[in-house]
Each structure stands twice: as C-alpha cells, then as structure tokens.
C-alpha cells in the first residue's frame, strides 16, 4: 500500500491562535524570536488507491473553508 503524508495548514489570513501562542512563548523561554508560526495537522496513512487522496482531503481530512492541504505520496 502506498504511504501518504498530508500536510494541513490554516489558510493564509485565517487566524491561527496556536501559532500566535507559540510565537509569544519562544522569546519568553529564552529562544530567539520566530516569525510566521503556523500550526497545522499532519495526517499519515497507507492507502490502497492514492488517487483518492484529494477527495479524501476535501471530504474528510481538511476543512476547505479555513485550511489548505498538500499531499505527498512516497514513491
């Protein structure tokens, strides 16, 4: 079964409170400040038919109104 990895990110312009929280925490912990911190989801799975992945993302894994996704299938 092909192994696939799906990266799901908040759409540009959508509020990402988690990213903001991490961005604020880093300097408080003594790290150098970071920018553009965005927190999303990582879905990894083995699928019988990799051509279905796009439909699976649209229908189940991602919320197209607020998230973008990127599909990576292992060769």
């Amino acid at each position, binding site marked *: 079964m092909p192994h696939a990895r799906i990266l799901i990110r908040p759409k540009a312009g959508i509020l990402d*409170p*988690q990213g903001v*929280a*991490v961005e604020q*925490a880093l300097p*408080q*912990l003594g790290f150098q400040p970071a920018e553009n911190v965005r*927190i999303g989801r990582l879905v990894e799975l083995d699928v019988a038919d990799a051509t279905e992945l796009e439909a699976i993302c649209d229908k189940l894994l991602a919320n197209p109104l607020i998230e973008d996704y990127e599909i990576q299938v292992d060769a």
Partner: protein
Amino acid sequence: MRVGVVQFPGSCDEVDALLAAERAVGAGNAELLWHRDRDLKGVDAVVVPGGFSYGDYLRAGAIAALSPAMESVAAFARDGGPVLGICNGFQVLCEAGLLPGTMLMNVGRRFVFRQVELDVVAADTAWTRATRRGQLLSIPAKHQTGRWYAPDETVERLVADDQVVFRYAAGDNYNGSSDGIAGVCNAARNVVGLMPHPEHAVDPLTGSADGLLLFRSPLEAAGVA
C-alpha cells in the same frame, strides 16, 4: 495555613479552587498567584487549577509549565511543599516533570462533563490524608484531553510504589486512562494530580461536598486539624 492558587491567562477554575480552599482552611487564607510572578507569597500549599491555560494551544498545559510561577512551584514541590494539580493543572504538573505520565485526547475524542465516582487508592498523600482508602468520592470530571497515559513499565512501578492515588470507579473511566488511573502522586507524596475537579464538589447545593476532603488534607499534615 495559607493556600496559593496559580492563575494563568485562560485559567477557568481558579476562583472555584480559591473558594474551595477557603472553605477548607478558613476564609481569607487563600490567594491567587499570578503566572508571571516568581513570588509564592509564603503560602504553605499550592493548587494549580483547571481551565485552559494559555488557551491549551499546542498541547494542554505545555506553555503554562514553563511560566515563571511554575519555576517557583517546582522548587516549592522539591522542598516538600504540598502541591495539587487539578485537570489542566495536573497536565501542567506532568508537563513540568513533577508528576509521572501525561494526558492524551479522550478515546471518545469529545469534551465530556460527567459526575464520576473516584475510588481513593492512597490515603496517605499530602492531599488525601482526610480521606479513607477505598472511599468513593462523587466529583465532576470535565475534559477533552484527560486520558492519563504512561508506558506500561511506569504504570507497574507506580502501582508497586503506591503512587496511584485515585482510580475511576467501574464504568466511570470515560477518557480511557491507563489502568483506570484518575490521579497520581510523586515519590515523596507531596505532589498530587487528578483529572476530576474536587473544587466543584465543596457544597451539597451544587451536587456534592466530597471534594472538600482533599482541601482539608494539608491541614492534617500540618497538624492543624
């Protein structure tokens, strides 16, 4: 005896914990400790309350565990001071390395509020001296990330060392915690964490007063009771 309750941005149950502590140790003897302050104001016991510290973003309790106040709480705990972590506060103590294990998402994936029965497994910790082993306490639980987890070897060691403090009564382990464990303590038995909320069980009018026993326990240790 004075009790301090740590207040993080996003804490929800800190005032409830404060009131619960006051009912147990006497009015005027509890106060809030601001997350940015290292000063614990000379309190004799610390409660890390429930809620959604720092929004629970990233991972429940992760950011709060690194706050200035928690640095002081860790030192206080190492010196043997009684520390109680409730729900999110339990997660904070685990993240801070003061208690074993960590919390995962409930097996049912949802936030669930339910009045559960807690079985007291260890009645000799700083926060359970006023209870009896085997006593059942009616206490509300409410969380989405409350499945306490530790690797099997750790669970076995905790059981052997009598560090399991509470288990869910049969049928009440809705989050799927390892071995039905609802609360644990550290090796020195002064730091206790549990998922259910004893601070919401201190008045029969609102459902139960069983939780008061926890808040009274540090008094017994101090020989005040």
